[in-house]
């Protein structure tokens, strides 16, 4: 190393390794086939390792991307020379060939990432496997990091990945087929929104990685909006708006002591106005058209919270009517449940309790812990503490993960109630 090398060393963009990992695995899988996705992951991990070894001592080269791509290509070519792959490779006719002349163009990277996203979210793959696959392959998170963000353990996450990779073997995605893209976009957005929701859950634990998860969800949807293969991007913009509005409140939801702060009590000056502005820009894009979708309604609800000066001044009537619109699109018990907070602000707590009890009578919502949680809250507001406590305990019995249980136990102890996550 010459001294000047290191002083002139470049800087890497935030999450450079993670993002490039996702791009490279997507491109290389395109050449090795989804049945060899694990080999592709190993190749990229090795290329990153080589980069680490050289760059830590010699400084980051002028064009780190080109360095990484060449290294990854060479490792792939070496692997393809091995007999096993040579045989498999020549037997598959439709697959493009990777050779020395190959270069990672922006177009190939973009198409490969899109294909990978649609493959990971294929309906034949279980939802929790879809999430694990996206985060491992496209977001470049390690199994430990995913487990950490999801309050889970490495063994569980690994199982989901193994299952998911197996199911992905039979998935074929044709980007040129408009129908496939249009039909499947919804399930891709749904999976990304689940990732966002998981990251957004109010908890003082693992805050950094969960905030990252939210930003990563935004990045993934942006990849979709940048693609020429997707013609109608209204839902993508709506989801982006929703995520920006929600994430603007991320840091105001937990106190420095790690206590979760109710929407009502949050310091609204801590809400990130730049993120709110990004949300508004995306919302503007969709209100120009006139299609109404689930995400556009949810984004508008979230926007209403963001622009309100205080909890009391919130336009609950508007929010309630938005939930009513949402019910027309998706008449599900969960939407009814989420609507209740707005309903109680407009119609009063007693009526809200009645509404919930009716919902329980005509659906299976009572199996869901947040139903009892919401009911408990309303009882609390009506000063029916005994009933509130009963409902909390019922919620605790139904809660499936430690994170929720811990939250509920705190509530029972203090009997100071906070609304469910969609309002925080």
């Amino acid at each position: 190393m010459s001294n000047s090398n290191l002083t002139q060393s470049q800087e890497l963009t935030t999450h450079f390794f993670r993002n490039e990992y996702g791009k490279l695995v997507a491109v290389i899988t395109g050449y090795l086939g989804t049945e060899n996705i694990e080999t592709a992951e190993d190749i990229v991990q090795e290329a990153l390792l080589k980069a680490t070894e050289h760059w830590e001592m010699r400084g980051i080269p002028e064009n780190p991307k080109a360095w990484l791509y060449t290294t990854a290509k060479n490792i792939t070519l070496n692997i393809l020379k091995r007999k096993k792959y040579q045989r498999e490779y020549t037997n598959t006719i439709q697959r493009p060939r990777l050779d020395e002349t190959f270069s990672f163009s922006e177009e190939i990277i973009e198409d490969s990432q899109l294909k990978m996203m649609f493959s990971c979210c294929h309906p034949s793959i279980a939802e929790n496997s879809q999430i694990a696959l996206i985060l491992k392959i496209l977001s470049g998170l390690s199994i430990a990091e995913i487990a950490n963000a999801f309050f889970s353990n490495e063994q569980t996450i690994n199982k989901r990945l193994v299952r998911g990779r197996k199911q992905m073997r039979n998935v074929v995605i044709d980007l040129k087929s408009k129908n496939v893209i249009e039909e499947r976009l919804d399930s891709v957005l749904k999976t990304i929104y689940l990732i966002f929701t998981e990251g957004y859950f109010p908890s003082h634990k693992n805050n950094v990685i969960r905030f990252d998860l939210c930003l990563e969800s935004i990045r993934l949807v942006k990849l979709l909006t940048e693609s020429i293969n997707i013609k109608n991007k209204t839902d993508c913009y709506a989801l982006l708006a929703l995520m920006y509005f929600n994430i603007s409140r991320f840091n105001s939801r937990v106190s420095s002591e790690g206590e979760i702060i109710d929407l009502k009590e949050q310091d609204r000056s801590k809400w990130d106005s730049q993120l709110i502005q990004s949300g508004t820009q995306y919302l503007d894009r969709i209100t120009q058209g006139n299609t109404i979708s689930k995400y556009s309604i949810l984004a508008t609800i979230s926007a209403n919270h963001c622009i309100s000066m205080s909890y009391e001044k919130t336009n609950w009537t508007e929010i309630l009517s938005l939930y009513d619109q949402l019910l027309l699109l998706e008449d599900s018990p969960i939407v009814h449940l989420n609507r209740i907070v707005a309903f109680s602000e407009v119609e009063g707590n007693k009526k809200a309790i009645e509404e919930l009890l009716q919902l329980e009578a005509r659906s299976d919502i009572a199996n869901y812990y947040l139903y009892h949680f919401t009911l408990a809250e309303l009882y609390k507001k009506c000063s029916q503490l005994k009933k509130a406590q009963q409902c909390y305990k019922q919620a605790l019995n139904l809660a499936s993960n430690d994170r929720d249980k811990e939250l509920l136990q705190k509530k029972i102890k203090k009997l100071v109630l906070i609304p469910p996550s969609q309002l925080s």
Partner: protein
Amino acid sequence: MREFLLLIRSEEEPKASLSPEQMQQHIEKIGGYLKKLTEEGRMKSAQPLEMEGTMLSYKNGQIVDGPYNETKEIISGYYHLLAENLDEAIAIAKQDPRFEEGIWRMEVRPIKHVEGIN
């Protein structure tokens, strides 16, 4: 100022199990540390070593391969730096952020100065 050779030792490849994000953090931390030493004029050279290579020895009148270490430990890189004395060189070595990962060993050796040769 005296010259020192710092031999970085590790078992297998400690970085292999790092996540992409951790690898980037590793580069940025160690890059920053080396950059500072370079700017202070203390770092004469720093190089990583490939995992491959061989050990040669002279046995029964000929050069043979081996013997190899019983452990998997290998020298994975070195620093050639300047310091006032051994204590200072050790102090510099201790600041290497790679120790935060806890999987590294470092040997700090003064380079022998021979009048008229180096």
